[in-house]
């Protein structure tokens, strides 16, 4: 699991023009690709995660879901894979590992969306399918942590080179923590791992490799929780550990990589001038359009009287949204209502025409 750190250096590229830009590649965003595709609309998706699937893939890939209509049981991962398969004929393009940052209106009425990686997307329709916001790494909730963040305290690895020759302390017991410890150990000046207990949920193979490094003295292993950071001007010199065994220990280090999972944070879309109610975007229930024409909100992020935060609600919202979105994308075309069962035109789009 990984997500980009909130800050990034934008490098502006030539704009990509499309029909629909979808912010969030969760189940709702993925199904919107399908519904838009049936109407002949092309989509680009932006997500902060390194893979599509939203909460289903990040929070519960192996847990069963029982309330998807006509699918008695599937896991979060299976649902994601099926949605990707269903959307495949429409060639969605994914811009992953980047956060949708700014949204501005162009003179021709289209919208321009710029991501943290500098991707520029322009379209008549923006669909916000952002769930509870972007998945971002959980920060260390220590009062003195902020000045170190981005300088000597990191929650993700952007460039491995950055860690060359460092005295690195890695915190966490999952796959991210162990994978990065193993990858960075050969180039760091020294490495140490701190975890709450002598049990790791990371893949057994990584745990074994880590233990081998500890055994040969290449890495030190500490059990406890970080209680205090030491250093000046954002430069870390060490941390105080509250040991699981009861005592305190000071570990010297100049760089700390902390992995405490991801959480969802509304992020930049809070400042896009949309009507918000308790961190949710208010929409009408005819087309799920926001207070800004051409900007729609569907799935968990959207709210209206009677809203239920269920995957099936997001699917329904996606279908209705696309009807109105079509008007913005193809103002001169009249939309005819057709079934996938019988329409030869839809069969062509789906790639199932004979």
């Amino acid at each position, binding site marked *: 699991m990984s997500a980009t750190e909130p800050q990034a250096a934008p490098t502006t590229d030539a704009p990509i023009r499309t029909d629909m830009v979808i912010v969030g590649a969760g189940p709702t965003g993925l199904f919107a690709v399908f519904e838009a595709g049936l109407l002949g609309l092309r989509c680009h998706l932006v997500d902060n995660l390194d893979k599509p699937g939203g909460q289903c893939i990040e*929070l*519960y890939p192996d*847990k069963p879901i029982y309330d998807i209509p006509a699918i008695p049981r599937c896991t979060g991962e299976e649902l994601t894979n099926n949605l990707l398969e269903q959307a495949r004929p429409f060639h969605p393009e994914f811009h992953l590992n980047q956060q949708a940052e700014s949204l501005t209106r162009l003179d021709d009425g289209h919208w321009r969306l710029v991501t943290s990686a500098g991707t520029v997307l322009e379209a008549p329709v923006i669909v916000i399918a952002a769930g*509870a916001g972007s998945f971002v790494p*959980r*920060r*260390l*909730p220590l009062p003195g942590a902020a000045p170190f963040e981005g300088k000597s305290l990191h929650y993700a690895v952007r460039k491995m080179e950055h860690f060359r020759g460092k005295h690195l302390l890695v915190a*966490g*017991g*999952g796959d991210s923590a162990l994978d990065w410890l193993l990858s960075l150990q050969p180039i760091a000046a020294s490495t140490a791992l701190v*975890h*709450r*207990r002598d*049990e790791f*949920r990371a893949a057994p193979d990584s745990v074994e490799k880590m233990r081998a490094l500890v055994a040969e003295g290449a890495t030190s292993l500490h059990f406890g*929780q970080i209680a205090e950071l030491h250093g000046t001007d954002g430069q870390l010199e060490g941390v105080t550990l509250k040991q699981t065994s009861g005592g305190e220990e000071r570990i010297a280090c100049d760089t700390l990589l902390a992995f*405490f*999972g991801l*959480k*969802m944070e509304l992020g930049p879309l809070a400042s896009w001038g949309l009507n918000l109610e308790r961190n949710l975007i208010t929409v009408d229930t005819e087309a799920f359009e926001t207070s800004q024409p051409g900007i729609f909100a569907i799935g968990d992020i959207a709210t209206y009287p009677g809203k239920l935060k269920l995957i099936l609600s997001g699917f329904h919202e996606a279908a209705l949204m696309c009807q109105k979105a079509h008007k913005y994308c193809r103002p001169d075309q009249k939309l005819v209502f057709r079934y996938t069962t019988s329409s030869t035109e839809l069969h062509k789009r789906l790639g199932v025409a004979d």
Partner: protein
Amino acid sequence: MAEIFVIDRDGVEHSVTATDGWSVMEIVREADLPIEAACGGCCACATCHVYVAADWLPKLPEMSRDESNMLDEAFQVQDNSRLSCQIPFKPELDGLTVTLAPEF
């Protein structure tokens, strides 16, 4: 009526009516006390972290592997830490006291 006691982050104790079959997280959340419980009780977020009063600890169901793994992503974990969504309320827990762990 069964009840549980919830000590909030300001140290204020609230007595809350406890419904059989609900999880302790749900009881706290439905009483409008500040518990994030981002994953809705699926043991997937660690934002329902509580400290359980010492005398109640042995009366709780044993911690599953899932729960102890998830606790790795919480902060300020102590020996009496539990994820409250993993504690179903039953009549024997009448009077249970939990303290909400710091938010992060």
